[in-house]
């Protein structure tokens, strides 16, 4: 093994800091000591490879996991996963989880006084195709209150988890909906300093994926870390 081609570091301001006091949970959980900068080794440029056979082919449709239809507005969420060099990230796992239409998660610690939906579990997964595309069918999640500060409400969002080709490219993020009036007040959305980077987490309404009489389409493209173009020099 010769020189290692590492993955690029994020542009300044485009990723959150660990400590963001308006998001109260970060105060006791963010590390206080500086992170140790580590040039990438073989460990960081490799990462788990998942075979297509582990994917439940029905897991992309969150509206078909039970005997009945979930309550709420059916939507299609789709997009492409690219790397920073603009290349599709093929055959990579995409996992999602979300609240139901009433803003309630199917989780024992979610005590929000809103009904659970027996026909909606709120989790799904899929794998990108040979052009980096993915597609989910789900229902639009509800906004919900949380205890971060007085009268705090989270904007509607869907959690996304992606692996990409390497340990270095792992990403967990959240997708928001265009026009949601709660977005500007959300400390989690606002944790990223760069405004354009924040706004890239807002999906776009999309006619192309909208299914007539069935479901509105939202497009959400995701970018994972790209590889350095020239091998990094090491001492």
């Amino acid at each position, binding site marked *: *093994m010769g020189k290692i081609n590492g993955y690029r570091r994020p542009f300044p301001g*485009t990723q*959150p800091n*660990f400590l*963001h006091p308006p*998001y109260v*949970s*970060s105060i*006791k*959980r963010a*590390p*206080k*000591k500086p992170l*140790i*900068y*580590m*040039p990438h*080794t*073989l*460990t*960081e440029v*490799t*990462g*788990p*490879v998942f075979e297509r056979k582990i994917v*439940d082919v029905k897991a992309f449709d969150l509206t078909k996991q039970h005997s009945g239809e979930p309550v709420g507005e059916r939507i299609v969420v789709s997009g492409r996963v*690219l790397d*920073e*060099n*603009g290349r599709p990230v093929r055959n990579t*796992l995409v*996992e*999602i*989880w979300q609240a139901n239409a009433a803003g309630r*998660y199917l*989780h024992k*610690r*979610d005590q929000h006084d809103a009904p659970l939906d027996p026909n909606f579990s*709120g*989790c799904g*997964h899929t794998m990108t195709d040979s052009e980096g595309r993915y597609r989910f069918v789900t229902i639009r999640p509800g906004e919900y209150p949380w205890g971060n500060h007085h009268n705090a409400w989270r904007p509607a969002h869907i*959690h996304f*988890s992606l692996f990409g080709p390497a*340990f270095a490219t792992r*990403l*967990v*993020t*959240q997708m928001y909906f265009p026009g949601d009036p709660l977005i500007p007040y959300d400390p*989690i*959305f606002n*944790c*990223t300093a*760069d405004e354009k*980077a924040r706004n*890239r*987490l807002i999906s776009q309404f999309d006619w192309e994926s909208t299914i007539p009489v069935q479901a509105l389409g939202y497009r959400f493209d995701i*970018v*994972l*870390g790209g590889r350095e173009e020239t091998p990094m020099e090491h*001492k």
Partner: protein
Amino acid sequence: MSLQASASQTVGPFFIIGCTWLNRSEIAGEGVAGERVTVEGRVVDGDGNAVPDALLEIWQSNSEGKYAHPDDTQNKQIEPNFQGFGRVPTDDDGKFRFTTIKPGRVPGPDGKPQAPHLAVSVFARGLLRRLVTRIYFPDESGNSEDYALNLVEPERRGTLIAKKTAAPGSLEWNVVLQGDSETVFFDI
């Protein structure tokens, strides 16, 4: 063309509903060669309180020091059923546990082999990005020359090295998110 990577966001408190399907607490299945180890520990916050809503992911090579990944071009064997990926949540007391095999030595950037290690990602409510750290093994002669350990000031290296417990093959390693004994986290 140059795009910018999407911003990270916290996994929040309820990730488990979406992530359980891929939980793997036994990283090395039957027939995978190597010394069997159990790693147990706890995730605590800056007040020493349990973090009951954390998720750890582990990435490792096999006992030959080869990763199950196309970019590992070393001429070494890898078991067909070895992936090297683990995912374990913490319980109500902040505890986690997984079993695996001790990995071999993978090449380091300086040409020297790295000491055996497990790469770890920590996700939790309150963490706006994942934390990246490593687990090294006790009594390992390679630790003193290890590339990543040597990036760390000596008095903090111990947070990266698991400790033996009374039970054979069992190791303890904890994640302290914040404080005097804070675990070393890497910027990768």
